[in-house]
């Protein structure tokens, strides 16, 4: 069992305007946007029985607001609730309500409260008109069965409350008004009616938080709404058209009976009702025009009247105010910018300014080229404004593009509404001169000496030429400067700083070193060539004790860099080798660097000698080119210190030079003690041939030459293939793609064993990525 407390009051409501509470109109129709409030004087009555309960209201009257309670508390002796159907009887006192039949709509608005038994998710509630006999202001048991015509049924949420539902009771209320009844009653019946699930429709209204049933009544009348421009203005003798909009913001059809001018003292206004719609549905609109054609200056008003079926705004009068100003005259002025000394084969934009110095808007209709005999002008109207108010201006361009020097003239026309100068012609005069651009050429821009020696001066001549063919393209050299190692100097005694087209001059770069090393410098040549204001000449020199000489190879105490290259390789690769040598001893070391070409019997080889001080690093970029002067080559590098027990650290990087940078492998210099000798084995791990990688294998021998056997194994120890190879003295030999060379298929996990049959051998693998050509150097273990 559950207590149900019901708070109900009654409110008969229409729409609200400006929060005012007004009385009904005398003729009984509901005025738009007005409010009626009904309360009850004796609200708290209940009737109880064994099985049914209902609530009623009576003696409603016009006045303030109030509430009453229908009490279903089972313990107060007034009522007992048996969990059965519960009907709600609502009677409204409408005796004071003056409504014109068929001019309104009415909706009964009720709100569920939280005092329901939990029931099905939804519950159907039917709203019936009450029988006429019971619409008497006194509610009895008979009212319970007084429902007659169903007005509307709705499914309501039976588990979530405080929701408002709106039932259309227009027909019932309209009938009661038509029959001049004092009361209008409604019966709210839940359906199903005999289930255990009892629901009750209470009410809720937000005023003071009380639960209040109400009827909202809305007029079905039309409502005229007129929009009039706030101002208008025109020049005397010209017309201004103002558009007036009529909108029906009411609920009924708005019929426009007439629109008339009721006041226009100067007779400057004219109505234009072309296209006017005389019948507007709710929210529909229509337009008409009022033409203002003044004959004198000043402010002028006219009043107009709209007659319609709007009940409270008929007729609707409005006033239009317009200003008449004196007539103005536009006046055009055209200004041009200076156009002089434009270089040939260039384009120059001449700015043209059009000004309106008159008192009326200048309207530009066209801009045309009248004459341009040399065809050097072109109009560019980008950004132009064709309507210029008084004191306004706009700018456009005429592009001047001469191929020859000289004087040029063109004539152009601006057409406008300027009554004095409807076609304004102006001349544009330009002068052109020949281009003065010089064109510098420097040769050579890269200098290297690979055969220089200490205390001997080497000289390189650099030529600067002005390639321009234009007679005025004079090259002016502003500076020639040298930066880098101090072994270099410049001799600019013969240098000319001004070169006519086709003329050339020279300067000298001298190298004079007092020690061996690799020396670098850069010469910067600055000039008035705007395309190439600075040209760089890069210089690098290898200064060795005796220059590059052919010497017998002695590898007994040396270090071998097993592989080096200056060569183009597979997949578009370009291989270069840089070498670094560090003297880790406490004293100077004289060392000889040999290049041992691949597959050669290197009893003797080209070599250069350096003296390396303690803790000094000798860094030789691109050793095959810079030191040995080669344009291409592959082989080993042998570094032999002349002093016993010399402590050298030797490294190199052989890399693929690309536009994206370099991809390389580190290769250190290996002591001859790292070579294996007859009967010994070396291991090459991580060999691979598949879609990702390929493997090359290389060998080095010492002075006595060597014989070896290489065997290729799968990772599980299975022998794939083997071959023997004889190496000449101090030789380098590389097998590219060892898998193919041994005629075995690819394998992603292989190793090789190198067995020395005679002599001494070092071996390595170079595992190369097929996509990047990046190698890693895998030395023999």
């Amino acid at each position, binding site marked *: 069992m559950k207590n149900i407390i019901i708070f109900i009051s009654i409110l008969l409501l229409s729409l609200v305007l400006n929060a005012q509470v007004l009385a009904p109109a005398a003729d009984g129709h509901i005025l738009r946007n007005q409010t009626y409030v009904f309360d009850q004087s004796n609200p708290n009555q209940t009737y109880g029985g064994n099985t049914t309960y209902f609530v009623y209201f009576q003696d409603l009257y016009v006045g303030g607001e109030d509430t009453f309670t229908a009490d279903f508390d089972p313990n107060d002796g007034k009522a007992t609730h048996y969990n059965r159907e519960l009907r709600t009887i609502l009677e409204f006192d409408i005796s004071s309500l003056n409504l014109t039949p068929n001019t309104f709509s009415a909706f009964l608005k009720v709100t569920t409260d939280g005092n329901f038994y939990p029931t099905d998710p939804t519950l159907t509630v039917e709203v019936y008109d009450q029988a006429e006999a019971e619409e008497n202001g006194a509610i009895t048991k008979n009212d319970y069965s007084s429902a007659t015509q169903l007005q509307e049924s709705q499914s309501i949420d039976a588990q979530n409350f405080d929701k408002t539902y709106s039932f259309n009771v227009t027909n019932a209320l309209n009938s009661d008004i038509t029959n001049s009844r004092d009361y209008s009653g409604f019966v709210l019946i839940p359906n199903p009616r005999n289930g255990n699930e009892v629901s009750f429709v209470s009410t809720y209204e937000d005023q003071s938080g009380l639960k209040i049933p109400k009827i909202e009544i809305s007029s079905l009348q039309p409502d005229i709404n007129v929009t009039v421009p706030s101002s208008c203005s025109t020049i005397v003798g010209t017309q201004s058209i103002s558009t007036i909009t009529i909108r029906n913001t009411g609920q009924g059809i708005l019929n426009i009976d007439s629109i008339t001018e009721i006041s226009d003292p100067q007779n400057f206004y004219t109505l234009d009702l072309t296209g006017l719609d005389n019948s507007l549905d709710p929210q529909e609109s229509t337009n008409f025009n009022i033409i203002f054609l003044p004959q004198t200056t000043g402010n002028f008003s006219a009043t107009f009247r709209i007659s319609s079926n709007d009940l409270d705004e008929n007729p609707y009068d409005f006033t239009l105010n317009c200003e008449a100003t004196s007539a103005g005259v536009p006046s055009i002025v055209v200004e041009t910018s200076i156009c002089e000394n434009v270089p040939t084969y260039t384009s120059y934009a001449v700015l043209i300014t059009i000004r309106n110095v008159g008192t009326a808007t200048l309207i530009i209709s066209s801009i045309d080229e009248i004459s341009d005999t040399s065809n050097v002008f072109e109009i560019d109207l980008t950004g132009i404004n064709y309507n210029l108010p008084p004191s306004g201006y706009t700018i456009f361009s005429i592009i001047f593009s001469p191929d020859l020097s000289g004087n040029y003239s063109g004539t152009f026309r601006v057409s406008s509404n300027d009554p004095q100068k409807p076609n304004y012609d102006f001349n544009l005069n330009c002068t052109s001169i020949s281009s003065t651009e010089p064109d510098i050429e420097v040769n050579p821009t890269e200098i290297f000496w690979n055969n220089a020696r200490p205390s001997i001066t080497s000289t390189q001549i650099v030529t600067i030429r002005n390639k321009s063919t234009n007679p005025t393209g004079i090259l002016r050299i502003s500076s020639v400067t040298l930066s880098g190692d101090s072994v270099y100097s410049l001799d600019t005694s013969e240098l000319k700083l001004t070169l006519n087209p086709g003329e050339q001059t020279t300067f000298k770069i001298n190298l004079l070193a007092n020690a061996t090393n690799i020396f670098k410098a850069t010469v910067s040549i600055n000039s008035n060539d705007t395309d190439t204001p600075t040209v760089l000449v890069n210089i690098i020199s290898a200064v060795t004790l005796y220059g590059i000489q052919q010497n017998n190879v002695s590898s007994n105490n040396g270090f071998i860099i097993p592989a080096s290259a200056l060569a183009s390789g597979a997949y578009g690769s370009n291989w270069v080798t840089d070498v*670094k040598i*560090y*003297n*880790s001893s406490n004293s100077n070391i004289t060392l000889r660097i040999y290049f041992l070409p691949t597959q050669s019997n290197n009893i003797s080889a080209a070599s250069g000698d350096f003296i390396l*001080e*303690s*803790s*000094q*690093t000798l*860094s030789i970029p691109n050793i095959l080119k810079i030191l040995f002067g080669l344009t291409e080559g592959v082989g080993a590098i042998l570094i032999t210190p002349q002093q016993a027990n010399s402590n050298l*650290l*030797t*490294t190199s*990087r052989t*890399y693929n030079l*690309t536009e*994206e*940078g*370099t*991809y*390389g*492998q*580190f290769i*250190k210099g*290996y*002591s001859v*003690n*790292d070579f*294996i000798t007859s009967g*010994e*084995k*070396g*291991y090459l*791990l*991580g060999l691979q041939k598949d879609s*990702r990688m390929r493997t090359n294998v290389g060998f080095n021998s010492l002075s006595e030459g060597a014989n070896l056997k290489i065997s290729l*194994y799968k*990772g*599980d*120890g299975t022998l794939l293939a083997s071959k023997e190879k004889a190496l000449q003295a101090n030789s380098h030999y590389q097998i590219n793609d060892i898998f193919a060379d041994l005629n075995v298929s690819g394998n*992603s*996990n*292989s*190793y090789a064993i190198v067995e020395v049959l005679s002599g001494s051998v070092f071996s390595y693998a170079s*595992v190369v*990525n097929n*996509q*990047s050509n*990046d190698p*890693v*150097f*895998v*030395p*023999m*273990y």
Partner: protein
Amino acid sequence: MRIFLLFYLSIGSYLIGEEIWLFASAHSTGAYGTNWRTDVSILNNSLEEAAVNVYFLQSGIDKSEENISRNPVSLNLSSKNQIKIDDILKEKFSVEQGSGALMFSSDKELLIVSRTYNQLPDKEYGQFIPGIGISKAKKEQKLIGAVSSQSFRTNIGIINPSKTEKAQISIKFSNKKGSLIKEANVELDPWVHIQYNDLFSYFGITPQEDVSIILNSSVPIFCYLSVVDNLSSDPIFIPGLL
């Protein structure tokens, strides 16, 4: 007899049964979309099956205790078999983002090489890193060829392979003429691997070419340089045992 008593060849020479170290390895996603991986090849060059324990020293100055307590991964290799472990940090140590050194321990003769590379959708590039025996760890190490220029940058790595002693390390940097240009001190706890990227910036050295580095430590250490092409990002690995 030689192969069982002393297998001693330059860069990849080991004493049988000694710890073998790979100075660097990675499974990491880096700047500019780089995707670093390390593949390792291990050859059991003995006539018996080899049981191998692999230890991972995660890079970081504060990783000593973590590295020492981390359990090794065990491998068994048949005689004369080479196994290739692709992306070893991910596959064996479940590393999702990390780098560091690897140490291999066995009583059999092992040969170990590795390749650490940037794996891109259309290509790979990387550096060869050999396995180095613990006997090559020295109190004095020399590195040459450090460079900082428009074309290259240089990273330096140091490992303290001692599991019990701290390494007090002094580092001296000299220019190509041999003049001292910078000194620094580093302390590494036991079993710590550290890499200083762009050493010129880290140690405040003016960018130049051909800088040589001498490290003196209270205990034997390993070290290396990684010289990276700024355009291609391709590195080369220069071990400090030259």
